[in-house]
């Protein structure tokens, strides 16, 4: 029982990682109706920026907020400069641009910062909370921050005119334009927000997995799965999906099928869920018009 509990907690901790990246994916999907494959690498690059700032003597929170703002700007710039020219190209062409962005960021980061792993500080105390032996304070703190981001995001989309405008721009660009929404800037804003959320995810992930250029490589697939199983248009679903994937994977690996195939089996289960519930657990059911 103790072992199971331990695995569940370890799963929740890694699930928090998936959840935070999944949130960024959902964010960009909400705003642009694309899934950005370079999201993980953008987050990784942002984390390196934060690392540079901390090394240059900035305090943690100063570096944190500076990185979040800088990432927002970078996200907007990437949309305006790199994505804009292919706005009207076929979807798969845009996917190729994402892939190009992914390899460029990965390669350039390795070139600038080398591939040796770096420690990234945590803002949370080192002693485990309440002396528990299951999860570190950082992991709990990271989950907390993810939930805060989720809340902010939810309120933003739900209660602010800007959030509504962004959703409108993504869902129906033509009509949105007609009612006076500047669709182009909404997309850029979406990219900026996604990049900012990604940078928070990166800074929360890095203390756990160590910072290196391939940090996000393995995480992206899990985050992708988490986002879809929760419902790609539902930020809450993405967080739920993240925890689900984390726990599922650990429990399967430890008790059911062994570590060798845990990824494969976890994915089969997730796809199974999607076959039965194509919009995920919390997604809106899609009705197509003939």
């Amino acid at each position: 029982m103790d072992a199971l509990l331990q695995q569940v907690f370890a799963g929740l901790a890694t699930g928090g990682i998936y959840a935070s990246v999944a949130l960024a994916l959902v964010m960009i999907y909400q705003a642009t109706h694309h899934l950005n494959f370079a999201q993980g690498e953008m987050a990784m690059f942002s984390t390196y920026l934060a690392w540079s700032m901390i090394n240059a003597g900035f305090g943690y929170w100063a570096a944190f907020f500076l990185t979040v703002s800088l990432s927002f700007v970078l996200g907007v710039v990437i949309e305006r400069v790199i994505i804009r020219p292919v706005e009207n190209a076929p979807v798969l062409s845009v996917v190729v641009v994402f892939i190009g962005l992914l390899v460029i960021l990965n390669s350039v980061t390795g070139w600038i910062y080398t591939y040796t792993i770096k420690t990234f500080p945590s803002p949370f105390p080192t002693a485990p909370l309440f002396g528990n032996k299951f999860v570190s304070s950082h992991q709990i703190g990271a989950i907390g921050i993810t939930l805060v981001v989720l809340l902010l995001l939810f309120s933003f989309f739900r209660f602010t005119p800007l959030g509504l405008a962004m959703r409108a721009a993504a869902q129906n660009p033509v009509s949105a334009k007609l009612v006076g929404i500047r669709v182009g800037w909404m997309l850029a804003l979406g990219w900026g927000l996604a990049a900012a959320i990604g940078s928070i995810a990166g800074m929360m992930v890095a203390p756990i997995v160590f910072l290196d250029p391939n940090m996000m490589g393995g995480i992206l697939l899990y985050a992708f799965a988490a986002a879809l199983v929760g419902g790609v248009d539902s930020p809450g679903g993405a967080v739920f999906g993240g925890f689900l994937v984390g726990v599922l994977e650990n429990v399967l690996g430890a008790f059911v099928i062994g570590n060798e195939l845990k990824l494969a089996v976890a994915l089969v289960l997730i796809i199974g869920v999607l076959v039965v519930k194509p919009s995920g657990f919390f997604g809106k059911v899609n009705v197509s018009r003939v």
Partner: protein
Amino acid sequence: MSRNKLIFLVVLVLVACALPFLVSNYRVFQFTLVLVYAIALLGLNLLTGYNGQISLGHGAFYAIGAYTAAILMDKFGFPYWATLPIAGAVCLVVGFLFGLPALRLEGIYLALATFALGVSMPQLLKYHHLEKWTGGVQGIVITKPDAPFGLPLNPDQWLYFFTLVVMLLMFLFAWNLLRGRIGRALIAIRDHHVAAEAMGVNTSIYKSLTFGVSALYTGIAGALGAIAVQFVAPDSFNIFLSIVFLVGIVIGGLASIPGAIYGAIFIQFIPNIADELSKAAPWAIFGIFMIGFVYAMPFGINGAIRMLLARFGRKAQTGGPGSTITESSLKTKEASQ
């Protein structure tokens, strides 16, 4: 097929036949790989370009084909040529079966499912219960075939011609398939599956069969690739292979048969050029090439060539279905999710 086009094709095939006598063996080997990738890309293009089902995991079928060939040759002493139909058949079945649940998935959901397949495949190949067949992490080494019937060709040249013939047959078959009813049905499903169904197209059967046939193509390519490289190992088939395939069909030109060849040339040679330009960050250069190609030719190399030809006043070709590329026809369901 117009007369001009036929002449052009014949010239092209003649050039392809002359090639191995004009360049070094190492280049012949590279061109063999181009042919192999062209078959694989055509397979993926059938699925993604013509039928609108995205796959981020076609490297998995390539791997299954490669391992089928390697295991048959290594463990059962099959001659290399006999492994191709078997590799194709295995992939046809696996692809069809995978295509059944995939029927319920569209756009990004299908992307996830296939992505998962691509990521899981190397782990399956390493799985210890399969080790006695797959050689586990060590992989399988196979022998390169010599030219038969005392032909005055070295093994590289022979394999090139062998691959060329297979490729031509596969391309011919695809062309034949796509220009008729089946091709029209595939495209109708891609562009509007509800409407297609309303017109009496059995979308389920078509979609899963397309998955199977697409896997067959890629699997045969995998088998040829294994024979050319003489080695298979899980590391040869990581997720990046699948992603590069997707890049290949987009840059070559979606829903076009020659696009597969352009794409194959891109994925074979651009990484080498990137490596030559920068040791520090070769992938960055590769990425810049990808983005640059998409900027310059949003409809792929084939689309750009077609536009050029049209601009120079020659009558735009009227090949099989799918040759009229419009923006809307290329938007897969991903957009409308």
